[in-house]
């Protein structure tokens, strides 16, 4: 549609709006300033800027000219509801000469209760950023001052275009806050269980279901998957949390000692038993005992353990006296106990006693979504320990972390991040800080054809430029400086590789990979 060119005063207001949004003020003050300018320059009153919340399908008022916080809070519309909601839904502007005749107009904020609505024109336009509606801008104007409603819509659309990036930033800031909240909710159990993957959510659910019961739990999983952490979480969530949590690594104890270690011994029970000593079961009285690598127990020890589980009583080595114990048992193994049972190396009755509530700790390769969360967590943990300032994990490092098959699971990832933090000279963890095992062909995904040198160089170049742009918040000049090249070359490469550099503008340099 052809429009008349903007008049001088309109261009002046638009320039002033452009200046207002180029300030370093906070977003709300900036929006307020824009609405002030619309009133002063163009007589557009009761301006409102709302942001689209896609997660709720609602439009929320962010700044309303002359509105109290209460009134502002009421300015929430479902998509399609009222004029604001409809404009947000359709992405098309709406304008009326006489506000009073508009049944769609809800006036939820109550801003126009005290004014004669028959004299008011209302103009409402979508705020569009990169082809998506991100918000709505609306204002009133005295009808008698409106010569051409289409021209008013045209002008307000120009304002909306100028403020679109800021409104988008505002929605990103809100989304960021929501994600942070969500992230904090992903570790509600005791602050140690990190993960937002489907598998971890299932584990969290199982833990919360079993924690407050007395049921024996058998945790099965590969080495380094966090079996002990799961056991500790169960203990901390149970009513026994104030009691002791005693860990026994059954594989580390020789057959001759395990019985004495678990159940204690009396003075003179065997050579060297110079005094009576309580076993781990007695030490765990009123709490939880965690039997790690339970599959390694000898058949004799298995029989004694079965008695504790069945009767709730133990006998110290060298004593005929039975001692009642109130201990919850959580066992873990990385072996297939069914197979060991078939081989006659694990008692079936003990297996069924232990396997009351089985939990399968998933390997890290099945928790793809958690790798970065965990990497961030460990990077932060070791950066604190080593008093370093690590702000980011580079794209190339992220690629290595996410494509590796992690045979050592979370333990391996933790060690890997500890090493990376130690080696990092600046505030970024790069691919070359990761151990060589991650850099070589290991997983099946790395057997894919690797392409020609030209393609590989191009991929590496793209990564380098993306990293530099992230570090400079999308500033091409700074990115060019950091790579020791010219802005012109960077611009050419951005266009060649289609790097979405504008996305990095809204994020602080430290936000690109850290949670």
């Amino acid at each position: 549609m052809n429009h008349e060119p903007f008049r001088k005063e309109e261009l002046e207001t638009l320039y002033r709006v452009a200046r207002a949004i180029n300030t370093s003020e906070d977003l709300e003050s900036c929006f307020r300033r824009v609405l002030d300018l619309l009133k002063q320059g163009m007589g557009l009153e009761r301006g409102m800027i709302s942001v689209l919340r896609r997660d709720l399908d609602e439009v929320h008022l962010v700044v309303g000219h002359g509105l109290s916080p209460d009134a502002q809070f009421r300015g929430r519309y479902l998509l399609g509801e009222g004029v604001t909601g409809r404009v947000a839904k359709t992405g098309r502007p709406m304008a009326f000469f006489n506000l009073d005749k508009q049944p769609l107009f809800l006036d939820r904020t109550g801003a126009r209760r005290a004014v004669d609505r028959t004299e008011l024109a209302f103009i409402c336009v979508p705020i569009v950023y990169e082809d998506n509606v991100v918000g709505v801008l609306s204002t009133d104007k005295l009808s008698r001052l409106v010569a051409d409603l289409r021209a008013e819509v045209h002008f307000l659309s120009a304002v909306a275009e100028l403020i679109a990036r800021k409104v988008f930033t505002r929605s990103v800031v809100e989304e960021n806050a929501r994600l942070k909240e969500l992230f904090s909710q992903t570790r509600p159990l005791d602050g140690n269980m990190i993960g937002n993957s489907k598998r971890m959510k299932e584990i969290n659910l199982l833990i919360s279901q079993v924690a407050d019961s007395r049921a024996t739990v058998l945790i099965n999983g590969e080495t380094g998957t966090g079996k002990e952490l799961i056991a500790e979480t169960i203990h901390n969530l149970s009513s026994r949390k104030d009691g002791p949590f005693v860990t026994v690594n059954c594989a580390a104890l020789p057959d001759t000692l395990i019985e004495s270690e678990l159940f204690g011994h009396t003075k003179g029970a065997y050579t060297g038993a110079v005094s009576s000593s309580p076993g781990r079961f007695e030490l765990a009285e009123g709490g939880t005992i965690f039997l790690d690598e339970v599959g390694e127990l000898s058949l004799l020890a298995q029989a004694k353990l079965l008695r504790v589980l069945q009767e709730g009583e133990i006998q110290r080595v060298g004593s005929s006296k039975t001692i009642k114990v109130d201990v919850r048992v959580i066992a873990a193994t990385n072996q297939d106990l069914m197979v060991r049972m078939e081989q006659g190396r694990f008692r079936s009755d003990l297996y069924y006693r232990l396997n009351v509530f089985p939990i399968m700790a998933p390997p890290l390769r099945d928790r793809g979504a958690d790798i970065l969360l965990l990497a961030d967590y460990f990077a932060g943990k070791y950066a604190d320990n080593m008093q370093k300032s690590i702000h980011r994990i580079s794209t190339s490092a992220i690629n290595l972390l996410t494509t590796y098959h992690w045979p050592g699971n979370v333990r391996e990832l933790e060690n890997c991040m500890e090493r990376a933090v130690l080696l990092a000279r600046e505030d970024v963890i790069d691919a070359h800080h990761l151990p060589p095992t991650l850099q070589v062909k290991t997983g099946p995904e790395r057997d894919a054809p690797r392409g020609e040198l030209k393609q590989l160089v191009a991929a590496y170049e793209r990564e380098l430029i993306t990293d530099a742009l992230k570090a400079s918040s999308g500033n091409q000049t700074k990115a060019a400086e950091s790579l020791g090249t010219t802005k012109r070359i960077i611009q050419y490469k951005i266009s060649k590789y289609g790097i979405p550099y504008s996305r990095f503008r809204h994020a602080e340099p430290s936000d690109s990979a850290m949670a």
Partner: protein
Amino acid sequence: MSQFPELTAEQLEKIRALEKELGDVCLLAVRRAEAMYAVEVKIDKNHWKPIDEVYSEIQGLRSYFLSRDDAKKAKDSLKSLITSKAGQQLEKRPIRVQKLSEG
């Protein structure tokens, strides 16, 4: 075109004397600044003009600033206006911030 003349001490003295003669009149405002910055638009090769002269259709446009930051903000604001749909009626040209003088 707006210009900032460089005056000698004698010339300044003559102007001050003329001001006294005329009465309550200020002919010359002197401000000592470390530098002044102009926001300019490229008209032709090696030919730049202050923005207020080129984009005279925008009222209230200032071309001269005492700080580089202010000049840069003015340049960025003008660029975002010109590159938006609203700026289609304004001719798109290179814009620069130029340091004018040192005190």
